[in-house]
């Protein structure tokens, strides 16, 4: 909603404004996915866009993730700039072949002849008692794959700003939107901020420990830092923002300064993005560390429905505080 720029705006509205802006600027851009049109988007991101842009450019699809993600790939090859909305990361598994075996590989296996300038957005994460099949955080999995870029906007600024550069990228970009963020409100300057899709960002400076996180757990890390400050511990909070390729330089710069690192990641611990961050820190800054790297991840269990169990399975502020205390010795 343009009239809301310069004022307080929700993450959902920021994302919607980003789509609207992209569609106004470039007629090659269109949105397709399940219930993006008449329903207004499962999470309400695209509400109102059908009325403005019409059915050709806000395309409701059948429930056929493989076909409509693949159609996005084909349309990108054919000169369009599609934004595919997959309702949630859980359903993206039905399109995994299209994403991993086609979108990510095509430039390479065609000898640089065919790039796929496609943006795929999807909701990720748990916390709303949606149980095991609707609560995955599989962005770390996708970050394993060469040929795609993985973004995790955790702020209003990134929700508004990341889509533009993602659409300008000549290769596939996946955007993961944590479901807990849509209602978050924040200020956005009247002039949309220019953001990069390459660097991690220090969200709170500190000198005693680096909290490295992204997406839905950023708020928890910031809350932990706030509580630690009350105890005289100054935690630096780093928002990864881009999960692939990782901004190793910013991570290492922070860790070398604080000499301690805790990675907070809603994915499962085994083979996680947190594991990758820790491995890189250990490989390159091992002798500068005062303590072994620590991780706060989800418990290795399918997400339970019952609220107390779900909350127990997810990274929490208390867990972050405990991990920080352990690395502080």
């Amino acid at each position, binding site marked *: 909603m343009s009239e809301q720029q310069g004022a307080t705006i929700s993450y959902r509205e920021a994302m919607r404004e980003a789509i609207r802006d992209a569609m106004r600027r470039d007629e090659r851009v269109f949105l397709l996915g399940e219930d993006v049109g008449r329903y207004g988007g499962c999470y309400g991101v695209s509400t109102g866009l059908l009325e403005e842009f019409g059915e050709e450019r806000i395309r409701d699809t059948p429930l056929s993730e493989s076909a409509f993600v693949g159609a996005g790939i*084909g*349309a990108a*090859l054919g000169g369009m700039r599609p934004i595919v909305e997959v309702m949630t990361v859980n359903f993206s598994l039905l399109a995994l072949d299209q994403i991993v075996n086609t979108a990510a590989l095509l430039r390479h*296996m065609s000898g640089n002849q065919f790039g796929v300038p496609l943006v795929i957005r999807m909701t990720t994460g748990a916390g709303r008692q949606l149980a095991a099949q609707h609560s995955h955080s599989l962005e770390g999995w996708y970050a394993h794959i060469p040929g795609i870029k993985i973004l995790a906007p955790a702020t209003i600024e990134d929700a508004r700003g990341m889509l533009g550069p993602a659409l300008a990228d000549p290769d596939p970009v996946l955007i993961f939107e944590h479901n807990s963020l849509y209602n978050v409100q924040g200020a956005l300057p009247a002039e949309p901020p220019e953001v990069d899709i390459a660097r991690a960002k220090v969200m709170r400076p500190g000198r005693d420990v680096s909290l490295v996180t992204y997406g839905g757990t950023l708020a928890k890390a910031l809350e932990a830092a706030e509580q630690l400050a009350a105890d005289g511990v100054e935690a630096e909070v780093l928002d990864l923002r881009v999960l692939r390729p990782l901004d190793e330089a910013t991570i290492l710069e922070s860790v070398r300064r604080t000499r301690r690192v805790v990675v907070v990641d809603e994915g499962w611990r085994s083979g996680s993005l947190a594991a990758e961050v820790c491995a890189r820190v250990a490989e390159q800054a091992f002798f500068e560390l005062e303590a072994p790297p620590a991780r706060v991840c989800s418990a290795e269990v399918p997400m339970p429905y019952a609220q107390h169990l779900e909350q127990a399975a997810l990274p929490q502020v208390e867990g972050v505080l405990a991990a920080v205390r352990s690395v502080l010795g």
Partner: protein
Amino acid sequence: MDLGITREQGLHLWRQMLRVRRMEEACAELYTNAKIRGFLHLYIGQEASGVGVLEQLGPDDAVVATYREHGHALLRGIPARSIMAEMFGKQEGCSRGRGGSMHLFDAASRFYGGNAIVGGHLPMAVGLALADKLQGKQRVTACFFGEGAVAEGEFHESLNLARLWRLPVLFVCENNLYAMGTALERSESQLDLCQKAASYALHAQAVDGMDVLAVAAAARSCVERVRGGEPAFLEVHTYRFRPHSMFDPELYRDKQEVEEWKERDPLVTFPERLAQAGLREPADADELEKEVQAEVAEAVAYAEAGQLEPVEDLCRFVHAEEVQS
């Protein structure tokens, strides 16, 4: 007997089929000599299908094919030398040696692979057609696949979407009766594949894939329909004479069956029909052979002489490269 074609048209179709046949025979030999490695899926026996369909496309149309695509690539206009160099893994290859036999690509002729996940390329064809429709371009996207792909979800999702959105895709199902080693009747509850397509409200027709003129006629009418803005489904009844790949001991089919199909080899029957129709001169066979063998020999020599990409370039082409200023 009037075939409804001129002598020149007849010789052209014969030559096109022969080019595919001889190039692939050379590939088989080169595989045995370890010049070509990986998987090698030969199209030998199915040439009338590719020739009959691809003759109907124009230069602006698009082709999306499977891993049994050497023939389609050649017929689409990718030079034999680029195809051969690709199979040799040389940087002069049509995919710089990054793709190999299963991943032939060519932007100039809008040849979108060379896709080796069965059924996985059908959505791409739908998307290419969607882009054409959104941009008001009157182009056809021809998507080839085997009958094995009709068991995949992508077949059903793609046909549904193409018809729902009225997209200009020609789905060409080259039914050679075996999905690798699994016979159609052992994998499908409905053996009439046209019925499957028709159930998504597509125009669907089947044709004898050993008869290049029949394929050409059927494809022509389908392409006209597609150019009018509707998807269509063409099932081509064909047969591969060779094993699925170079690793296949062919335990799943009778030698007798293969021999029976070979009696219908389009490279035997079509020249005979040309002769019966008075369209063939005695010297034609030798001249065509000479011409085609020369093309294949040149392609092999080119591939042999090609360069291997420097290992330092290993990690290139994962993402677009920065333009050097």
